């Protein structure tokens, strides 16, 4: 388990390096497709052959999935980046068979947005509370509901409700043949195999989830304000003894200045 966790952490660190580096390379006018392409190149150059899902980049009002009518709307579009836009970069590389899935939210440019700061504060609160929820006696279904209530009580919309199967998170595992390239439109065969071979619904932390809490979870609360969305995504470990903890505390959203960037 320890060795596997180290490898999951290595994959997660790489994913965050990719989002942090690409964040610095964005410019006014770049499209979501081009930004996602940079994430893809960054990971492939770093020994990644396949992805759990295609790298995503969402800009501006697309970060809150406004007018998303089909699964294809999630894919990076030709939407161009403007100064002051909220940006979400979401990448899920498979490194040496270990899946990471991270999301990073920031504002492009130096403009401050009090609503975004408020949303990020809520995300940090959820991050603090989630391990406790997993360690408590409440079920995963109730965790989903509790997070949903908290989001709504704070005046935001629940955007992860719009994800496939409305997931707040999904389990990640070591996948076989992770060194082989995967076709990802938008989910790769590695992810489909990993989810389906373990019963699919028990792997997806949705509003109807049933099953064990034990495992490594990619948790991704995604909340929406008036014309923006914000999320974080990172790996949470629940061990056999029921202890829950974030895989790493060295993540961008815990670093100084994240609230205002």
């Amino acid at each position, binding site marked *: 388990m320890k060795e596997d966790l180290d490898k999951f952490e290595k994959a997660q660190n790489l994913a965050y390096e990719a989002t942090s580096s690409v964040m610095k390379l964005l410019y006014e*006018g770049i499209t979501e497709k081009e930004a996602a392409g*940079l994430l893809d190149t960054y990971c492939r150059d770093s020994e990644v052959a396949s992805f759990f899902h295609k790298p995503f980049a969402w800009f501006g009002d697309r970060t809150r999935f406004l007018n998303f009518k089909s699964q294809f709307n999630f894919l990076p579009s030709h939407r161009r980046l403007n100064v002051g836009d909220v940006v979400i970069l979401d990448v899920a590389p498979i490194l040496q068979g270990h899946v990471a899935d991270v999301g990073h939210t920031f504002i492009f440019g130096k403009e401050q947005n009090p609503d975004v700061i408020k949303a990020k504060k809520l995300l940090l609160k959820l991050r603090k509370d989630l391990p406790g929820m997993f360690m408590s006696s409440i079920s995963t279904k109730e965790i989903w509901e509790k997070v949903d209530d908290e989001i709504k009580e704070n005046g935001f919309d629940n955007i992860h409700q719009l994800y496939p199967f409305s997931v707040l998170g999904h389990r990640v595992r070591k996948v076989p043949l992770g060194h082989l390239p995967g076709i990802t439109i938008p989910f790769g065969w590695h992810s489909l195999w990993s989810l389906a071979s373990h019963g699919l619904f028990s792997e997806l932390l949705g509003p109807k989830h049933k099953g064990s809490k034990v495992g490594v979870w990619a948790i991704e609360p995604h909340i929406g304000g008036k014309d923006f969305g914000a999320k974080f995504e990172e790996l949470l470990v629940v061990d056999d003894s029921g202890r829950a903890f974030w895989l790493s505390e060295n993540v961008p959203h815990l670093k100084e200045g994240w609230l205002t960037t």
Partner: protein
Amino acid sequence: MSEIKAKEIQCRGLKTSYLVGVPKSEVKGILFFIHGCPDNHLIWKNLMNRFYKEGYLVLAPNLRGIDKSEAPTDKKRSRYSKDSLALDHLELISHYGQDLPVTVVCHDIGSVSGWELARRLGPRLKKLVAINSPDPMTLFYQFRKISQVKKSWYIAFFQTGKIVELFFDKYKVPLAEKTLKLGRFPEITPERVQEAANLFISFLPHYRAAFAELPTRFLKKTSLVDKPMLLWGNKDPFLNIPTQKDLKTVAKFPEIRVLEGGHWLFLEKEDDVFRLIQKN
């Protein structure tokens, strides 16, 4: 070269060596030079010094696998792809200034990453100056003409794996000398020939990656580079002068300037090239 320093940066696990000159006073913009085959970044030293003195921040990396720029140990072709090379360049540029306008100057096979970098700089791109340096798609369209096929047969030879490597082991020095002579390289010294001979083999992965990427380029629509300036030597033995038609899939309103000279036009006609790069 006193103000131009040799430095190194890590790009996704691989060391990239580069030359840089940062003016002490106000910076007018970035001049980014990408060398071709069989050269390294030192080929730009004269132009770099001149632009440095004009107040430009000048940067010239060694391409992947050339001199001190590390090659991937597993010979992974993707590290030589246009996307990967352009990302190397973007990381280097962002290290020095995210907001400065950038002029990209490329030569020969430096075109693969030069044209891609120009596409990815967005509004920061001031100008692309391609010196005897066609985008691979342009070269592909030029292959319609038998004269270009005759000039570029060696690109097909470079795809032949071990055969070409054995050939280079045995004949790299005469090949380098012939290449420099044909291309009208000024001042061919035994040291320059030896240097070119040693560099040749490191360029093979670049030619192979550029060739391998051609099919995907047909499937993927790329954005057009706005108003690039193409400087061409009329005596270039390796590359035909591109026409507006050859450039239509890669450039919008290209400006083609033909000068009296060979393949290393920026060495032969340094003053003219210096003036034209500065031209708005």
